């Protein structure tokens, strides 16, 4: 049997060991996702990339492609569930797109547009989350964190620093921590040139004093929707 599978009826080639997500992305096909990044180990936490493989749900970022798979991706049923996941992410944090400098470059926002999310639907949590402006070059605004874990992975795997870590328990207790005694970024060896400084898909890790320098119309997702930038931006 050929090393191919069907994704919404389209034949997708793969090499043995590739996940469904890796093969689809290499082919230029978009599967919605937030926590997956090709350069880092799989986190599998956002569940946005859930597809149906031969009629059963599975995470496309963790499931290896197999010959002859019938994979459903952008169906109304799956996009509806993805939209609900997005709505829960929006209400769990403090996502105020109108004044967020990441607006137009944010994967959460772009994915919400892609999946036609029209409202948060659920009651907002309005969690009390800190802003860490102690570092001279980088601002951390945890109000926007979606716990994707990419900063943790990038700092550990690419920078070799372990600046960030997941910690705490429960829906409101679990959050990303800065690994320093004070808990402040200024007390780490984090640098603006670190890979982790530019990995955040939302507006948590930001270069200071550069907000809004790109005009509306020229931002990443002003140019084309996220589904049309698979190889370049998704990631």
């Amino acid at each position: 049997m050929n090393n191919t599978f069907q994704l919404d009826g389209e034949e997708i080639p793969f090499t043995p060991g590739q996940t469904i997500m890796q093969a689809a992305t290499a082919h230029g096909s978009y599967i919605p996702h937030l926590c997956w990044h090709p350069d880092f180990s799989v986190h599998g936490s956002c569940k946005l990339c859930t597809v149906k493989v031969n009629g059963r749900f599975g995470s496309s970022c963790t499931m290896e492609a197999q010959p002859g798979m019938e994979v459903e991706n952008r169906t109304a049923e799956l996009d509806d569930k993805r939209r609900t996941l997005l709505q829960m992410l929006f209400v769990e944090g403090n996502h105020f797109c109108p004044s967020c400098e990441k607006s137009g470059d944010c994967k959460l926002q772009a994915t919400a547009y892609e999946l036609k999310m029209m409202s948060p639907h659920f009651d907002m949590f309005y969690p009390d989350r800190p802003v860490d402006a102690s570092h001279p070059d980088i601002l951390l605004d945890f109000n926007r964190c979606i716990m994707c874990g990419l900063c943790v992975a990038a700092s550990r795997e690419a920078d070799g620093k372990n600046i960030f870590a997941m910690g705490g328990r429960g829906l409101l207790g679990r959050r990303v921590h800065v690994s320093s005694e004070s808990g402040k970024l200024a007390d780490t060896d984090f640098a603006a040139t670190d890979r982790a400084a530019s990995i955040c898909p939302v507006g948590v890790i930001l270069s200071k004093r550069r907000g809004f320098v790109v005009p509306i119309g020229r931002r990443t997702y002003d140019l084309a929707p996220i589904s049309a930038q698979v190889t370049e931006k998704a990631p």
Partner: protein
Amino acid sequence: MTFELETAIAPEKLRRVAIDPVSRVEGHGKVTILLDDDNKVHQVRLHIVEFRGFEKFIQGRPYWEVPVMVQRLCGICPVSHHLAASKAMDMMLGVKELTPTAEKIRRLMHYGQILQSHALHFFHLSSPDLLFGFGSNVAARNIVGVVAAHPEIAKKGVLLRKYGQEVIRMTAGKRVHGTGSIPGGVNKSLSDGERADLLKDIYQMVAWSRDAVGMIRQLFEQNLAEYNDFGRFRSSGMCLVRADGAMDLYHGGLRARDTDGNTLFDHFNYGRYWEVIAEDVKPWSYMKFPFFKSLGPDDGSYRVGPLTRVTQCDSIPTPLADKEREEFMAFDGGSVTGATLGYHWARMIEMLHAAESIKDLLHDDDILGHDLMATGQRQQRGVGVIEAPRGTLIHHYRVDENDLVIRANLIVSTTHNNQAMNTAVREVAKKYLNGREITEGLLNHIEVAIRAFDPCLSCATHALGQMPLEVAIVGADGRVLDEATRDHRGLTRESS
């Protein structure tokens, strides 16, 4: 001390008429009137019952976010807040002079704002009162009525506003709540194509703005006695002026004159505004009452906005508007310069000035430049002042060493005009309310006085002249004697 008709001696013996709400952009205001058994007016107050929390929740946010966030104060003139905050952050960054491109793009954005806001107010919100009469048939006294009776006038209003919005879109990125102005400069200039698009229609906009000045002049000529007397009172005033005394809506020094026209301060550095202005509070309104420190809270109230700017400047630096200013100042021996409804005339002169300024800037190649940002020596504090469509707007911030805002103070145009609007409403109530039964037309007279100032309460686009009003007459025993409600169905009454 309180002002005449501000506080009745024995309010418990009076009945209360309330206009609640008088609609205000992003919030509510109301007017309460206390009458005795003979319907003599004893107390009139314009209450602003809205609470704005921007000064508080901007605290702890990074400074570069502020110009984008605080503009959400308003949906009508967000550019004013966007620019005032940017100017404050320029000062905080130690930027003493913007690049020519940044300065001119910001000015273009601001004049687009003045054009669209003044057109919106005059044509959409005020022209129904002026064209049909303050107490005319409510069914027709709205923008739809203007479209039906005067389609050419309505069309000009709509297209003038649209043009101003297009100027804003091309300079800020969006028609409402853009991001074009950033601390230290701007994030875009105009392309050749954008300039060409705007140049196509600008001469028509100048001509229509000129027509609008002629229209309000004609209305004054036809109704001189009523217009001159309506809500008239003597007031001090304050505005920005350029170094040579000419009108400058974007930048300048503060000029203030008292009720007799004597100069209180001139070319005053707005970076120290608190040395000349203080704010009083009253228990019945969330809005503060600014006053000139040199005159004190009892005598120091003042007004801002188009009437003050046009009458206090030495000239207007565009020829057509300056000619109109001279005629306005000389009209009927200068009587209109003190009339509350003179605001409308002055506003249209400013709209003409904005259109002329846009035309001049579109012919300046600096707006196509690519040098957008300036730098300076970082400071802890920044003050930005701009002449917004409704008057002087002050933004004041302190930023800590980590780049987070730790203090913010905003004095918006409508706040400066708080006492002036109260006084105008009292004058109208004295003249038109005494001894009369409540009618929709009477309510509208009070609104006409408020609306002349173009405060945030009258400029909510969604109201479109059909502001919902509720009025109740409550007897001394607390019993409701008479109620009137106005909504989209018109005026309905319920008498007990």
